[in-house]
């Protein structure tokens, strides 16, 4: 039986961290950005637990417990903030908050149009009520 070497866990932790960082930088949905930040924390926690295992002490595991605490605080604050931001703009898009940028920066504009939602007629078509539908031949044959 061969133990899994330390560096394998470190590599997985690094990959989770980098993926989370990419997600945090590219995604525009506030909730997904929050989830990506949590994934970065998971990568770090994995690192700490691996070091605790391979150094034979519990310090890494204690540290992960504090990470969980901080992550819980972060979740509470982030969700409250998301709620407030959503109320103001009625959308979860971070790019709507571009007025928070520096004065010298140009705003980024979305040039390519999105796929437009399928056309739906504005008013539903209502048949005149109170008339009996004409019976079709198959229907009568079944009865």
């Amino acid at each position: 039986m061969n133990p899994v070497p330390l560096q394998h866990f470190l590599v997985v932790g690094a990959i989770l961290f980098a993926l989370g960082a990419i997600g945090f930088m590219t995604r525009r949905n506030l909730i997904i950005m929050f989830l990506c930040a949590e994934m970065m924390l998971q990568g770090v926690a994995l690192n700490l637990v691996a070091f605790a295992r391979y150094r034979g002490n519990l310090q890494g595991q204690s540290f992960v417990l504090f990470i969980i605490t901080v992550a819980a605080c972060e979740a509470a604050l982030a969700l409250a903030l998301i709620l407030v931001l959503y109320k103001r703009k009625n959308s979860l898009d971070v790019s709507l908050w571009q007025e928070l940028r520096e004065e010298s920066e140009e705003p980024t504009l979305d040039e390519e149009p999105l796929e437009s939602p399928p056309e739906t007629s504005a008013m539903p078509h209502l048949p005149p009520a109170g008339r009996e539908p004409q019976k079709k031949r198959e229907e009568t044959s079944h009865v």
Partner: protein
Amino acid sequence: MFLLNFLSSGLKLVFVDQWPLTLAAVVGLLAIYLLLPRPRRLPLVWGIAAGIAALFAVVVLVIPPTRLSVEGVIFYVCAVTAILAGGLLVTQRNPARAALSFALVVLATCGMFVLQAAPFLMAATIIVYAGAIIVTFLFVLMLAQQEFPSDADARSREPLLATATGFVLLGTLLYLITTTYQHPTLQSHLDEVTAGLQSIQTLVQQQELGQSPSQEDLDRAIKENMAKVTAFEEWWKEQHKTSEGDPPIPTDPLGQALYDAEGAFERQKANLGRDDVSLVDLEAALDKIRAAAEIHLGTLRPHVATSGESGRLRPWIESICQATTRIRKLREGTPTTEDRVLGLSETKKQLDDFQEVWQGSVQKMTEPNRTLPETVRLSQALTQARTRLTEQLDRARGDKPVEFKEIESDLDQVRTAAVVARGTLRPRTDFLSDLSGPPASLMPGEIRRDEYGRPHLPAQNSAYLGRSLFGDYLLAVEMGGMLLLVATVGAIAIAYRKPTPRATPANVMADPAGRTA
């Protein structure tokens, strides 16, 4: 010119020496870039193919599976699930599905926690994150449910730049991890030694069955394995070269095992002519190397000699080298009395300074009630050198012949002892109690290990974790609790909306014009 050199060596490192890493990172970059949401969708096939190729490249080239065990299989399943789910979370357009893939990431990470003897953390993470994820999920259902694509979900900010940044970071991290913890050379030496061990074991079995192996077989086995051990030892010496260029002293288990094995092979080689070869001796020696090398592979490399306090000592050790040269010059030349007195008194002053600095370092770095044999040796050598210098200085002042040769050998001894003792310096460890396990500054060789080379951890994980938290980390626990309280209050304060005053009869009476509303 410097810039050119820098660039060419950098390019060589990235594209020649570390091509597996570069390949994996570039393919992974492509995968994430192609899969990120954008208004005009790209075909999914290419992105998915690149993602699978990147995962495959990482598993095969960067973290190759060694002999697979049950533990290894569980690890790979968890790791692949975590990475795939992480990729899905980053590239998913639907926020509800993204929340679900984050749940998968957490579950897979918890699987890896269990593999690393952290069952309490597994439970805690599942409970806390499952709760957090359910809340997030509610948010998603409340706020983000749209039937048509929105700006928030169907567009990415700077997809190419962000992905490139992320993968440059990842490549650097992976490079550091692989160069620090994976020694391809050590692994190849280990494989060689294991193969040699097997060949000797077959010979031993033959012997036990009553067939004595032929002289040629014995001769070949000893010579081949001896070459392997010597090559291994050369590599070890190269790795542990001291900054003064001295041959290293085997202080770690691997060096010790190699040194012993070389002796064993020399002995048996001498026995070869007398037909009295003890194969069991060789087997034991090789087995010791194998065990030590396997432990060495799985642990940090000690690099105390170049950093921190022991790095500060380096110029002082060099000053002793200078003193030795000065004495040698005095011995070889024909100095006047004044020169001799001057040289000796300067040397004495250097030794005194060194002793002062060394005492300071020892007080700062080692445990109060712990004396190491290396430290004792150094202080003995120092005392001897200083006594001799004092008495020779008197002789020089009295214009009598001075024993320069003895002084030189004394100084040599001080220098060797100082080089060895310098390696024993490490930070003091009396900050934490025993409840948190052995201190982090312990050398890898001093940790108690099981038969696979992994350190022992307490069996009652949660009990020990609790004692450690409420013993050593009590202040931090209190502060964590405080932080939670502040966060709760903050969340309420942020999300609280002032109720608008209703038009009650009392209001209308006080403000008939209705200006408050």
